[in-house]
């Protein structure tokens, strides 16, 4: 057993009347990574802020002890605490754009820590800051010292944040969802940096995340939090091999995995609000194994092998049935419902005295695909690749610059938009922004029917009730306002709104990316049921490859406004051919240990669509790039079964 660096005992944190952290104990050894895993509202971030004593106003540490390297941090006077912050332990936050001061250069923000904790100033401080930026892999560090945060890409910003946290040479690094705001290829880069530096500096690390994949690749030990409590703790391998708490288990089962034909296990309900009064086990209301004892008696810790679990029935729970492979989804080759041909969306850039158009941002640059009724096409890509713009341009929410959209054999022009809108609808990403807070749910559902004249006016109220039932909402939901619903329920309302006009195609724009895993599973199941029942076609826009595997029949991968690879879901995800797709697939953190596939590291960031690279857009980041890649954009290379890629390298291999 290594010497504990951090020892937390019985930590209780209160904000207002709510106990956001309740009796949490754990320890972290030198050089160890401890992952705190939980859904939103579980209290994991508040635990981190409690350690730093940086609680929001109204928050206080009510009980417990926090011992860092022999000092009780909780008992320190504020003055001495400041030496600990940044010096003893440092913290990395989720959103680097917001967490860095926007009007102070990166260099000065790092030097500030050096001055505070290492007494450096002037030239030595600047050199040390540059060395730090070098260490976290920021290219051209000397120049970047004088950059402002907005001038850096998301990945570089987070690296700068890490450099800043390391500047005080902390013994413990707290990383609060350090990669959640980043694209998956960038996430892989940043996690790499963290792993490397932790090892080199022998730091302890507290990694806070909701992503089991991130835990699997980075943590030594894992703690699972639920509703302010730690419910399970163990060594990573043991935990991943056999999670013991019903909640942990269900988190695994709710995760869409490759080769998954069947339905996802969902956790009913949602994380309870923390100002509630709990009796018994906090998970009991959502637990399928709960018995009377769970509802009255709060469970204590039980030790099972290397794991500690807070469940009355730990160890005696039934072994989860292996997920049924389920019926392979029927593949029907039908005439396409939607055909998109050479769709372009260019935004003009105006400059100069008379605002002349000097160029175009080619957000979408010649995209073609087709979807048949009852089928799902997933449009996959990282942020900024233009996938959302495709969705909006299809519905003419953004006017396309060129290209033809044919829906059910009818070519859509601005004259027959009405028929487009009756047949194609959209579900948006953010369940909080997509429902008007000032309208009742019934009015939200009626809006589309009224505007498009769907159905008989007198019967629309009945239609609303039917829709609510269809998406699994209670009958009285119609008379309430959106704020009365949780994120998952709101997304159901948004789906019902789209279905209200009986469309044949639904464009789902990242419908689950703002939701917790357990809720995501509910929504994915719902979407699939609706597709089976109504024969809907989905255009599923996402960056989350795991979701794609679960839901999509076909996949199109977008990079910088163009589709670079297209094919059936199994072909593209299991045997990707385009180097970008390969990197994308390999960068997804896997929960299965030792899958043997090394992560393909992509250099740098996605270039701006304002000024795309010549030739193949991907060549500056591509390991296989050759001279021809720099000069001409590759044509389609057919790989059979409708699978194709645009890549010179692939073309050379197949010939």
């Amino acid at each position, binding site marked *: 057993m290594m010497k504990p660096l951090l020892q937390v005992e019985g930590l209780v944190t209160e904000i207002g009347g709510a106990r956001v952290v309740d009796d949490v104990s754990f320890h972290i050894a030198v050089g160890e990574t401890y992952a705190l895993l939980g859904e939103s509202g579980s209290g994991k971030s508040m635990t981190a802020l409690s350690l730093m004593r940086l609680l929001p106003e109204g928050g206080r540490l009510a009980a417990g002890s926090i011992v860092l390297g022999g000092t009780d941090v909780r008992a320190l006077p504020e003055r001495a605490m400041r030496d600990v912050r940044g010096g003893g332990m440092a913290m990395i*936050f989720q*959103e680097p754009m917001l*967490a860095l001061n926007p009007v102070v250069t990166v260099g000065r923000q790092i030097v500030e*820590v050096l001055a505070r904790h290492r007494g450096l100033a002037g030239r030595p401080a600047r050199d040390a800051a540059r060395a730090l930026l070098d260490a976290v892999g920021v290219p051209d560090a000397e120049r970047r010292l004088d950059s*402002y945060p*907005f001038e850096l890409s998301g990945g570089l910003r987070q690296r700068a944040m890490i450099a*800043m946290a390391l500047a005080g040479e902390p013994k413990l690094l707290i990383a609060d969802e350090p990669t959640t705001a980043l694209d998956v290829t960038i996430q892989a880069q940043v996690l790499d940096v963290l792993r490397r530096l932790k090892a080199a500096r022998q730091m302890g690390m507290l990694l806070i995340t909701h992503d089991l994949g991130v835990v699997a690749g980075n943590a030594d030990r894992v703690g699972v939090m639920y509703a302010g409590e730690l419910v399970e703790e163990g060594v990573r391998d043991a935990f991943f091999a056999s999670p013991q708490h019903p909640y942990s288990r269900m988190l695994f089962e709710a995760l869409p995995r490759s080769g998954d034909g069947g339905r996802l296990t969902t956790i009913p309900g949602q994380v309870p609000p923390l100002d509630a009064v709990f009796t018994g086990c906090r998970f009991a209301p959502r637990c399928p194994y709960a018995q009377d004892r769970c509802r009255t008696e709060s469970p204590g810790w039980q030790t099972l092998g290397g794991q500690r679990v807070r469940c009355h029935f730990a160890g005696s729970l039934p072994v989860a049935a292996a997920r049924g492979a389920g019926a392979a989804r029927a593949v029907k080759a039908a005439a396409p419902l939607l055909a998109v041909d050479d769709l372009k969306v260019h935004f003009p850039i105006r*400059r100069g*005295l008379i605002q002349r158009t000097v160029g175009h941002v080619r957000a979408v640059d010649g995209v073609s695909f087709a979807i048949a009724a009852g089928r799902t096409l997933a449009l996959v890509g990282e942020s900024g690749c233009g996938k959302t713009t495709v969705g909006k341009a299809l519905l003419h929410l953004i006017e396309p610059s060129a290209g033809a959209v044919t829906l059910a054999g009818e070519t859509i022009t601005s004259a027959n938009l009405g028929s487009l809108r009756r047949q194609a609808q959209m579900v948006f990403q953010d369940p909080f922004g997509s429902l008007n807070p000032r309208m009742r749910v019934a009015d939200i559902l009626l809006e589309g029917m009224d505007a498009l004249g769907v159905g008989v006016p007198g019967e629309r109220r009945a239609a609303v009730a039917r829709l609510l039932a269809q998406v699994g909402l209670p009958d009285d939901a119609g008379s309430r306002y959106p704020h009365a619903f949780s994120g998952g329920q709101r997304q159901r309302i948004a789906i019902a709104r789209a279905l209200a006009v009986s469309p044949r195609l639904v464009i789902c724009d990242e419908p689950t990316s703002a939701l917790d895993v357990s809720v995501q599973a509910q929504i994915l199941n719902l979407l699939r049921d609706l597709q089976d029942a109504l024969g809907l076609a989905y255009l599923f826009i996402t960056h989350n490859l795991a979701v794609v595997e679960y839901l999509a029949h076909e996949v199109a991968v977008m990079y910088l406004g163009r589709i670079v690879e297209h094919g059936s879901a199994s072909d593209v995800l299991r045997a990707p051919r385009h180097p970008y797709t390969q990197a994308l697939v390999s960068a997804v953190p896997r929960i299965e240990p030792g899958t043997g596939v090394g992560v393909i590291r992509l250099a740098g960031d996605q270039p701006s669509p304002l000024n795309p690279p010549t030739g193949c857009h991907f060549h500056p980041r591509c390991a296989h790039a050759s001279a021809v890649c720099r000069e001409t954009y590759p044509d389609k290379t057919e790989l059979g079964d409708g699978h194709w890629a645009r890549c010179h390298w692939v073309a050379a291999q197949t010939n």
Partner: protein
Amino acid sequence: MHAYILRRLLYAIPILIGVNLLTFTLFFVVNTPDDMARLQLGAKHVTPEAIERWKTEHGYDRPLLLNRDAAGMAQLTDTIFFRHSAAMFAFEFGKGDDGRDIGTEIRTRMGPSLAIALPVFVIGLLVNISFALLMVFFRASYLDVGGVVLCVVLMSISGLFYIIAGQYFIAKLWNLLPISGFADGIAAWKFIVLPVLVGVVSGIGSGARWYRTIFLEEIGKDYVRTARAKGLPEARVLFHHVLKNGMIPILTGAVVVLPLLFMGSLITESFFGIPGLGSYTIDAIQAQDFAVVRAMVFLGAFLYIVGLILTDISYSWVDPRVRLQ
């Protein structure tokens, strides 16, 4: 950057034309020179001859837009519009009813106006920011609550009260400073102190409260938490990180009024007998001297637009994120 400023300057032209047309409509179309004459002459002296004579004296005896009696270009130039409205683009304001050249008056009166307005502006800004920072530093304590209540009380008091009370107590009762008046050169200081004091005090309420809100908004942001997580003392967090961000809206909000300081303050100057542009304007309004009012409208609009352009430029100075295009 240069193209941007040039474009903004070009944009100023239609604005000034709009202002000009609006004042022309108000002063000559809605309200004809005959009406003006009647108002000036007073009910007793209104005869058609008197009106004509008044119009001739003031140069209003021409057609509004088109002079059909004149030849060639003079058809357009020998009109009220050209002589009294369009001429302002060349900063030719003509003469006031007292016969003095308005342009000369403006030049000589700018000095005294600035002598009051500039110190009020600078000291006021410093005092308000300091007061706001003080409240923010002690936020959620009794000091903060008391400060806010004080601000609300201060801003509920009429500006006229500050002036009258200041004059009564400081000048009349305690005889510390002269009640009103002005002097040239360095001797002016004793006439300046009281109006500046009054000006600063009357602005504290709303100013400090507004700045406090700005700072509090900044304090809630994530980068402040980051700064604290670095172990920086609260004072450094406040005076370095928060102040730097909070100053962006404050400074740019202040820059827009900077050119308008030339116009002086109507009320203050009138009460304290400062021979500036403010008292000039107020006298003109009270004497219904339309030529002066028109000139001041144009000047004010011009300075406001200069302020807008300065604001844009100052944004690009204080906020690295702003690039002018």
